[in-house]
């Protein structure tokens, strides 16, 4: 996500084109996730350790590259962000129209991707293979599903989508990059996957919930409540923990999650 955020920002900054920026951001984080794939799938190292270390690497790499290119100037460089897109007719509905149909392209895309990814996961051969590799790799292997290749595809797709998420922060929301701009959002997203019971529709609902918490927190700050702003900022993090406790026992991860697959010789 961090890598995507920076690469997307740089891409847009230098090409002056937001679309190209998105592509570059997605490609960069896809390549970065390839490292994750190589170490955990080919070398079969522990996925948790590799993930933690790659997060630290991304943190260092992005802030290094950003410093190297822009120095530590007082006025951070910014780019022209993705503009909100009004949907004709629907956008004219008072109130609801402004909320739902005055968003930027990526917001629509995100919501469109929910049924699309659900369809791919649950209705296509590819999705079935993908889930089989996660549930019972040995059985999948027996039936001729290339386990390692499927896992590579999954990791890279995950990376590309995270990169898109990172791009959203720099290209659509904040127009600039700062160190650790994601502030744990990648991990909140993992929590959303668990909370959404490993199902795209559930995940969409879960992320909406987190979005509401974040929006509420911003709005309360703007309204100037008595509550110190630090406590408002804590809200999404506390909600994540509460959500994880609430879903206990009802969310079952794929059986072979985080288990490297070793072919028998």
């Amino acid at each position: 996500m961090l890598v995507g955020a920076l690469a997307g920002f740089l891409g847009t900054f230098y090409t002056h084109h937001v679309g190209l920026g998105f592509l570059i951001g997605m490609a960069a984080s896809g390549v970065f996730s390839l490292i994750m794939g190589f170490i955990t799938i080919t070398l079969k190292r522990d996925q948790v350790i590799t993930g933690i270390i790659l997060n630290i690497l991304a943190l260092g790499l992005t802030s290094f590259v950003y410093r190297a290119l822009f120095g530590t100037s007082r006025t951070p460089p910014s780019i022209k962000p993705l503009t909100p897109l009004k949907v004709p007719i629907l956008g004219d509905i008072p109130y609801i129209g402004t909320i739902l149909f005055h968003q930027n392209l990526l917001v629509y895309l995100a919501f469109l991707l929910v049924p699309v990814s659900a369809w791919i996961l649950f209705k296509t051969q590819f999705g079935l293979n993908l889930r089989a590799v996660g549930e019972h790799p040995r059985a999948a292997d027996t039936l001729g599903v290339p386990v390692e290749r499927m896992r590579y595809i999954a990791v890279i797709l995950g990376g590309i989508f995270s990169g898109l998420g990172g791009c959203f922060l720099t290209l659509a929301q904040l127009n600039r990059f700062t160190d650790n701009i994601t502030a744990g959002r990648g991990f909140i997203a993992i929590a959303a996957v668990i909370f959404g019971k490993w199902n795209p529709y559930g995940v969409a609902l879960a992320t909406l919930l987190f979005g509401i918490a974040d929006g509420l927190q911003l709005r309360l700050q703007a309204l100037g409540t008595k509550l110190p702003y630090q406590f408002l900022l804590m809200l999404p993090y506390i909600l994540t923990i509460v959500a994880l406790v609430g879903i206990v026992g009802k969310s079952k991860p794929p059986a072979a999650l985080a288990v490297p697959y070793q072919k028998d010789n």
Partner: protein
Amino acid sequence: MKKPVEKNTEKNRKVQEWRRGRSFLFLYSPLLSFFLAILLAFLLSSLLISWIGASPLLAFKALILGAFGSLNGFTETLVKATPLMLTGLGLCVAFRSKVWNIGAEGQIHLGALATTLMGVYLPHFPSFISLTLTGLASFFAGGFWAAIPGWLKIRWGVNEIITTLMMNYIAILGINYAVHVPLKEPGGFLPQSALIQPSVELPILVERTRLHAGILLGIAGAGVLHILLARTTLGYQIQVVGLNPDAGRCSGIPVGKIILIAMVLSGGFAGLAGMGEIAGVHHRLLENFSPGYGYTAIVVALLADLKPLAVILVSILFAALIVGADTMQRVAGVPNSLVLIIESLIVLFVLGSRALSYVRHPLFFVKDNGQRTTEGKLRIS
């Protein structure tokens, strides 16, 4: 999978032995692979340095001279090593039981908060008593912060990686609030607490430097944890829980309790690190007093192979990188975030070389789908 027939040549014999894990390859030696990893990490980062137009040689010279070139530099390295050492030690315990405590940063903050509260509000006692009380308070404050995710994990099976990370942000925001409002120095303008009383300050070891007694605490802690892990029943149980919780449960180990103990121990040591920063270095609570020590300590513990005694050396090495990087930034204009890159690259290369050398170590020993036997022994997984 069908393999081509292998001739019984010397080379093939070696290859076979390597496959069986009794490697003659030099990579087998953990120490050598460690140094190779460092070398590779530096080589790769020198590419980055030359990419931004600086000279890698100049940069690395500045890095080494900054860290070890003067008494001031060297003691500063030890000052920075202290929180890394204490936190890394605690993480050794947690990671040995495969409890992924990513929340050391928050636990450090809680320890620092406890120290500040003691330092500001504790009635005046002789220094020895004050410091003991403060140490206990910091240990339990950090331990408490770690116990929450630990408890959520054993009670409801909530993933501790996510909860500990979330707890970091909560703790940091809480400290931020504390120094802005309730603990703010009366009459002061900056967001920082009042100075702690001298009886809670850790003694300075070398005149005119910042080197404080925290480092001794770290070295002593390494000894204690080494004995705990290698010689005691609790240490044994912690490791069994990490390797195979089911086997542990079957042989009567209270797995949940052990996980909680491991969590509290690791949080406690992080709390002590927080105490070292406040009672030894800053003498008051401020925002951003920790430049991510809790995260770097994760790398330290992993690289030290979760061995407490090795943590002493690795933490000094990493502290040298941090101190040297500041000099490097000043002299050669290379951003000091390069350190994070070097650190994580070292671990990645060590991970990679372990894959090649097939060393069976509890940490890098991952579950296999089949119960493959090697050299007649059943792999526990």
